[in-house]
């Protein structure tokens, strides 16, 4: 599409506003948008509604079912969509991370096969990256894929994949060459999750939810046509995937639709204020400082997001700046959940049987405080990326550099 034909952002905004009012339901007031059983099916339908209305995949290429518009269009749509229920969980990881990586590295056939289906809500994707043997050292992966004619045979295990049990496809990193140093012997595959040879087990988390999964592969045949990028060059694909992940989790992805993960906490802000009102503590100066701090941390996160997104788009910042967003989101959540716990007080740790109180929810949330600081690259990994790749400080020593992977020492898997 030439520049002349692009719909002006403000026209698009007005059209989106009118369409949203007619077609999308309001944000659920019972917190149902936060996940839970059946939520993904609701979101598949919401995504289909967006697609049929001509508002899905705003920044995705038009030839694969998207609109081919700009980040300004996407931002305008997101602003207009705030009062409405949106398929938030499709943003991360399906749209913002995996579909984005497919745009960058998929073949024409792969994109034709999957991108329209993703934009219609028919395919949910997850990433199969981490393994039980180690989370942060992604390139140290042990899952193997051995070439056998037109297929690779996959064996091994992946872990911490969010929502795999309810999803359809995965991008899976596996070792295809053991005779070269670790980064050079990896390949990225498209894997259909529910098929013979793949067993998916759900992992129960501290807050009782069952979001994370572990998968076991037993002689799973993967067609050569499902290799993303080049054989043995999967690290290039994985690196880009991680950039998309940091942007998406930090709220700076152009491929998401509506409020994105990590910024879905306006309601938490409200619940803190509500809690303070109910407890009659609105005049307490200390309480007022905490409420303001929680709110300011969130506001600043939005400002940082805009700055980094703009900086990268203008070429004023290197792409690893996305790690600033991830680190900010994660550390802001740590502090904001801590504030929630402090304001909830005793009511956050014990409550009348079966009562569903705001204080209880804040207490339970605090158990999950470190979740965002671990998932999607831990804070420590983000700090390495910022210092090394954004600021050019010396790299950490790595004992496995330039060593054929079969000769690298390995430790024991994590145990509960």
């Amino acid at each position: 599409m030439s520049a002349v034909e692009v719909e002006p952002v403000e026209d698009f905004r007005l059209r989106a506003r009118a369409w949203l009012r007619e077609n999308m339901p309001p944000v659920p007031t019972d917190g149902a948008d936060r996940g839970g059983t059946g939520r993904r099916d609701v979101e598949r339908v919401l995504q289909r509604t967006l697609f049929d209305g001509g508002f899905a995949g705003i920044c995705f290429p038009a030839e694969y079912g998207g609109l081919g518009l700009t980040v300004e269009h996407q931002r305008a749509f997101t602003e207009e969509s705030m009062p409405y229920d949106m398929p938030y969980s499709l943003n991360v990881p399906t749209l913002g991370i995996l579909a984005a990586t497919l745009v960058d590295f998929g073949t024409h056939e792969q994109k034709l096969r999957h991108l329209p289906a993703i934009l219609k809500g028919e395919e949910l994707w997850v990433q199969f990256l981490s393994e039980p043997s180690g989370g942060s050292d992604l390139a140290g992966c042990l899952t193997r894929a051995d070439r056998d004619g037109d297929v690779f045979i996959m064996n091994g295990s992946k872990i911490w994949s969010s929502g795999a049990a309810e999803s359809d496809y995965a991008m899976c990193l596996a070792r295809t060459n053991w005779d070269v140093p670790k980064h050079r012997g990896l390949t990225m595959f498209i894997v259909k999750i529910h098929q013979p040879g793949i067993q998916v087990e759900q992992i129960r988390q501290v807050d009782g939810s069952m979001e994370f999964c572990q998968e076991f592969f037993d002689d799973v045949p993967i067609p050569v046509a499902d290799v993303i990028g080049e054989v043995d060059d999967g690290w290039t694909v994985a690196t880009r995937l991680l950039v998309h992940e940091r942007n998406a989790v930090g709220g700076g992805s152009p491929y998401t639709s509506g409020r994105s993960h990590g910024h879905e906490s306006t309601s938490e802000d409200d619940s803190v204020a509500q809690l303070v009102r109910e407890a009659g503590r609105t005049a307490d100066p200390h309480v007022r400082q905490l409420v303001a701090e929680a709110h300011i941390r969130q506001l600043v996160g939005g400002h940082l997001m805009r700055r980094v997104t703009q900086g990268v788009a203008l070429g004023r910042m290197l792409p690893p700046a996305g790690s600033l967003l991830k680190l900010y989101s994660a550390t802001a959540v740590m502090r904001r959940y801590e504030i929630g716990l402090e304001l909830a007080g005793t009511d956050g740790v014990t409550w009348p049987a079966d009562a569903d109180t705001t204080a209880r929810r804040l207490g339970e949330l605090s158990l999950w405080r470190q979740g965002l600081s671990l998932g999607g690259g831990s804070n420590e990994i983000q700090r390495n990326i910022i210092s090394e790749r954004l600021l050019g400080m010396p790299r950490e020593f790595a004992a496995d550099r330039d060593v054929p992977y079969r000769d690298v020492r390995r430790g024991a898997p994590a145990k509960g």
Partner: protein
Amino acid sequence: MELDLTDDQAFFQETTRKFLAAECPITTVRALEHEPAGFSADYWRQGAELGWTSMLVAVPDGGGSLSGHGLLDLVLVAEEMGRAVAPGPLVPVSVVASTLSRSGTAEQRSEILPGLLTGERVAAWATGAVRATARGGDGFTLSGEAAPVEAGAQASHLLVSAESSDGPVQLLVPVDTPGVTCTPRGGLDLVRRFAEARFDEVTLPASAVVGSVGGAAEDIERQLQIAVVLQCAETCGAIDHIFEMTLEYLSDRYSFGRPLASYQALKHRVADDKMWLEACHGTATAAAKAVAAQASNAGELVSAAKAWIGPHATELIQDAVQLHGGIGVTWEHDLHLYLRRATVNRATYGTPEEHAERVATRILGAAS
């Protein structure tokens, strides 16, 4: 700093940076420590010639901006002043000039603005516990005190925010009016001067009123917003410089045969500092844009910026002191000049806690 500058803005920024490097290097800043004004009159006149004092003044009054949003141009000056810890009454002169241009009478504008625009004259903003009592239909009597008043002892006129029986009122007061005293105060910054102003039964004519009697709240709020935006921009410039300096130092210094920059314990702190730095810039820019556009949430964004930047900027510089080692706590090293500036900026024109309270008021309503 705004990342997407127009060509004019980029040129203006570069000109200001070169001017400060040539006319006010840090040796000059240090040499001004014992000068009563903290800046030389000639330096301020040259800055005014570059446009420092005209950005918030309307064109008919002799002012004018580069981008049409004078405040967004002026924050570039404030950032450069922060980067160089330069002296000069940028905040008080900007506050008074913009208010006179907006709400002053023709007489006030023609009497005061030309001198402010050329840099020949300095004016200051006095806000505190000042009472204005009407004198039977002909002017006011001012009583009370205001402190700290930035550049109060260097100013020819004070814009005084006072309370009257009809509500807030502002008056333009020549400092040589009988009953007005401006006494210099001490302070952390080597070159930024504050005074305390006293008003003992100061008699003023009705022509001294700026804006309407009882209706000054909007002007006063805007003055606070402009002051805080400039102050935040200046602090951002200061921490920009400190961050770059510290990163370079860590690469140059070796311990145990390795550059300090290779230690993960230090790399991770630098990563956090970088995150704070960019968050400070992002939030300062958002506040500046909101005030420039007179957005309805400008007050909230300004206070959020101040509450965030105040403590994070000083923490970043204190961490830079730690990363520098012993040299960081010496008089000889320049770090303390920046720490002084950021610490003073943190606690003037409202503390972070006072600004957080303004944000809390928006969320929870007033405390009482």
